[in-house]
């Protein structure tokens, strides 16, 4: 290994992006480890993991081999190394044998690296002197039927890990301060709940919503299962709370434009789309006395442009200047500039309030937050793609969301449940469950959309309650009523008279005259094909991630699974977190959820997102790159390569050298691998360490 001179104190960058506070004194020399090199004493601890590992290999043979590896001072094994007694073995061995490095051969570092680092620290060593050899996921589990091969592979893995442990150095995590503000993207019930929780915990929260109003999908619903309380009654007070909360800065008709930074210090640029209407606050700020939009609606009355109202699923008209429904928050009109003909009628009628600005342009606002929550929600799967059911071809085939609007007192029919073709109340209504869900054809969604069973039961109930004599038929494959009081609700709806037919509808035909629908299914329980004439068909269409979820997730560096839903850090133990530190998920954007689960997930995300803010600082893994100034030629090629904008060229001692903003660096190694002069030292993944591992593998036991 090349000798290196003392690296000068890493100058803190301009102080704006990362005020890095060092908790421990920086290491004197990069990569210099005189004691470690001279006398490395490594302990090897082999875990049986019950029979997970021990069942597939010869532990004794592995242990005997480990003793022969150079620099190994101690070897032991235990049934569950991660358990309390297992960790005690490590603690004791460190002290008794004056170990300088620890190797645990067990599971994946994804699972127990933190556990064994702690154990190493408890034993009195720097936690980064620990190295894991994965002999479970990458060995015993995949070579279950090859005892001999698995044993040999475990020996290799341990030898390689020891080679690295021999050269490990003390490292110290960096601590960065956390901005005492949070952001929530999406203001449906998930985003609203998360924002309210954060705000109530005393955290300044920016709530970003792309549409003109908060409320999301839930505000489109009529009643909610299984309690049947009206959606508006429980949602609108929350909307008002959000509007009023001092700690929430609400930005509707706005989208996240760009995100920079890292946990604790995200710099987010928001695009406030031109809505062409000034709020009263904005009016005041511009010095218009008593000006700005007061929601009077005079403009809407004179606007000559008529469009479908998307909130009403297109079943009601709206104007080019509009609010989606009377309960919007904020009560502020918006101009749809794509349709506005700039006739000026609205400007004239608005008069002295001067609330309307037809020449308004998008604005960009920058905010700094410590953590962020994505709550971007869902859209309906375009169920017309399943052409066999004739949605958009047959007037009386509607979606569940359209049903919600039609049965809602504030909906386009004032709550009179009528069918679209003739405005007549239906007598026989078929509900098709799994309309596009649990579908592996590629034209549909492979997953269960999770709340359709329950809302369809609710729909059947609403029909029976509102329209005596109406017969609901529920075509289902399985009724999934798994929540609290859900199965009881299923019992109730069956008792009320809904007919359940276990069969998926194969196709629907329309009578061209009556516009009635012929529904074809197999009553699989009766074992007879069935042809049922109904007046109305309701498709419980699958849900899919909201349209621009993909764009938003990329801005925040969040992954998604195959089906497009955002990927949680761990499906069971970290369902609200993501693999990007400081970014959390709430609600359906992570996967289909009903309202109770959505709210629970939102509260979970808010709680998780508030932790770093309350702690006030976060520790970053010390895996960052460091520049060996003496070797750096100042070419700057690494600066552009860095995916995290963590590198910069600075002037030092009269020449240009590269400098790392440690808090921004994720230790990916792109620069280190590239640097032509070998001037970049990757902490914990240093070239000599990796070469030692490769040598240990290639040279076998004869190093």
């Amino acid at each position: 290994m090349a000798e290196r001179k003392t690296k000068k104190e890493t100058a803190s960058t301009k102080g704006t992006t990362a005020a890095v506070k060092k908790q421990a004194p920086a290491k004197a020399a990069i990569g210099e480890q005189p004691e470690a090199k001279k006398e490395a004493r490594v302990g090897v601890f082999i875990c049986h993991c019950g029979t997970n590992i021990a069942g597939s290999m010869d532990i004794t043979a592995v242990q005997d081999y480990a003793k022969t590896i150079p620099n190994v001072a101690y070897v032991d094994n235990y049934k569950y190394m991660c358990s309390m007694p297992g960790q005690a073995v490590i603690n004791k061995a460190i002290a008794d044998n004056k170990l300088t490095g620890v190797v645990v051969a067990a599971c994946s570092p994804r699972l127990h690296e933190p556990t064994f680092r702690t154990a190493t620290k408890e034993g009195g060593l720097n936690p980064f002197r620990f190295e894991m050899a994965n002999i479970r996921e990458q060995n015993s589990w995949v070579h279950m039927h090859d005892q001999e091969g698995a044993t040999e592979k475990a020996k290799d893995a341990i030898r390689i890990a020891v080679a690295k442990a021999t050269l490990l150095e003390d490292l110290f995590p960096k601590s960065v301060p956390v901005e005492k503000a949070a952001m929530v993207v999406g203001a449906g019930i998930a985003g609203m709940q998360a924002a309210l929780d954060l705000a109530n915990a005393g955290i300044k929260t920016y709530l970003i919503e792309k549409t003109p109003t908060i409320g999301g999908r839930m505000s489109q619903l009529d009643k909610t299962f299984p309690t049947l309380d009206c959606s508006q009654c429980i949602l609108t007070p929350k909307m008002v709370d959000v509007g009023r909360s001092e700690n929430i800065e609400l930005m509707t008709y706005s989208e996240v434009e760009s995100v920079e930074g890292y946990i604790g210090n995200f710099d987010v640029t928001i695009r406030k789309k031109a809505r062409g209407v000034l709020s009263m606050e904005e009016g005041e700020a511009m010095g218009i006395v008593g000006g700005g939009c007061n929601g009077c609606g005079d403009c809407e009355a004179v606007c000559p442009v008529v469009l479908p109202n998307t909130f009403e699923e297109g079943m009601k008209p709206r104007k080019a200047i509009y609010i989606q429904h009377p309960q919007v928050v904020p009560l502020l009109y918006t101009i749809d500039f794509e349709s506005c003909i700039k006739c000026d009628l609205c400007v004239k009628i608005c008069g002295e309030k001067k609330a309307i600005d037809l020449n308004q342009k998008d604005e960009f606002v920058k905010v700094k937050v410590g953590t962020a929550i994505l709550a971007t929600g869902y859209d309906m799967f375009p169920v017309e793609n399943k052409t066999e059911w004739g949605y958009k071809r047959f007037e009386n085939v509607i979606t569940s969301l359209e049903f919600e609007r039609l049965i809602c007192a504030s909906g386009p029919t004032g709550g009179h449940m009528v069918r679209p073709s003739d405005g007549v109340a239906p007598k026989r209504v078929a509900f098709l469950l799994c309309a596009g869900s649990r579908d592996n054809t590629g034209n549909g969604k492979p997953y269960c959309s999770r709340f359709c069973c329950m809302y369809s039961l609710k729909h059947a109930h609403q029909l029976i309650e509102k329209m005596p004599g109406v017969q609901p038929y529920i075509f289902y494959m399985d009724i999934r009523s798994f929540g609290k009081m859900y199965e009881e609700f299923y019992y109730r709806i069956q008792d009320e008279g809904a007919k359940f037919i276990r069969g998926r509808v194969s196709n629907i035909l329309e009578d061209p005259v009556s516009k009635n629908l012929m529904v074809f299914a197999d009553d699989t329980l009766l074992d007879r094909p069935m042809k049922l004439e109904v007046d109305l068909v309701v498709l419980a269409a699958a849900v899919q991630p909201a349209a621009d979820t993909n764009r938003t997730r990329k801005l925040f560096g969040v992954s998604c699974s195959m089906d497009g839903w955002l990927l949680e850090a761990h499906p069971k133990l970290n369902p609200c977190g993501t693999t990007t530190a400081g970014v959390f998920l709430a609600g359906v954007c992570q996967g289909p959820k009903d309202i109770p689960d959505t709210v629970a997930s939102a509260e979970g995300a808010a709680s998780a997102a508030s932790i770093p803010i309350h702690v006030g600082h976060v520790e970053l893994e010390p895996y960052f790159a460091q520049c060996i100034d003496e070797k750096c030629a100042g070419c700057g090629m690494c600066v552009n390569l860095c995916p995290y904008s963590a590198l910069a060229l600075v002037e030092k001692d009269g020449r240009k050298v590269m400098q790392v903003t440690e808090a921004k660096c994720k230790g990916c190694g792109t620069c280190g691998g590239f640097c032509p002069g070998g001037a970049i030292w990757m902490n914990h993944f240093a070239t000599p360490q990796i070469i030692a591992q490769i040598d240990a593998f290639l040279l076998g036991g004869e190093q």
Partner: protein
Amino acid sequence: MEAKHKYAFYLGCIAPNRYPGSEAAAIKTSRKLGIELVPLKGASCCPAPGAFGSIDLNVWYAMAARNLVLAEQMKIDIALLCNGCYKSIWEVNHKLKHNDELRDGVNEVLKTIDMEYKGSINVFHLAELLYDKNIVGVDKVRDSVTNPLTGARIAVHYGCHLIKPRKDREFGATEILDTEAPTWMEELVGALGATPVEYRQKMQCCGAGGGVRGYDIVHALDIANEKLINLQEVGVDALTDICPFCQLQFDRGQIEIEEKFGVKYNLPVLHYCELLGLAQGMSPQDLALDLHAISCEPFLQKVL
């Protein structure tokens, strides 16, 4: 018009041996539309996908491959006019092109008759060539009409194997491929000056396929009869199809339905090529319409 596109014309069995007017019409009308159909000498039955597919799929692959090799030797693509033939010839070609194991098995058999399947040609149904803008297209079909079938109400029977199973077929864009409510055939009927008529269960099978017509004739006829009832309900002058086997089922089937069920429809059933021939000025004699089991006279009086 000079022929821009040349195909080996795969005939199958029923068209040349029962409805020769379709064969004559196909050759003549295509020529007017820039397509030259040359004989595929020595072709056999495709072989019948229902019968042979049911007995031993390997024989089906090998027999269809022999027909494909005949065209490969001529180095031209195949055009055909029957959905059943399309199932055999197109699908076996598709399967052999994408499945090495199948192809090797087939070539082992073909070796015994000094043939080798190479996968060097493509297979098309005439109907798809007629609809495809890059080959003919609805507009050119319309332009070729000299005797518009004005006033005739004509319903379409799509049949099954040209478009189903949807996920395996490659015919045109998605909306054409829709097997629930396609309208491309109606466009082709409209181009002839006739009025295309929609009816209940338009996409239902004729009932003849899969060997059912031979196995259980009344079962097969009952399926066809359901469609005839639906057609009678809307009132049509003729039914058109793009499959001689469907044509046989509906045409001769009406005689059998009368015998077995005692109901009579007298609904003329014409292959689209026959309709196109009439619209391009061919006479009923040129089309041997007198061979049809159900007289086309009332329909002809309306359009001639």
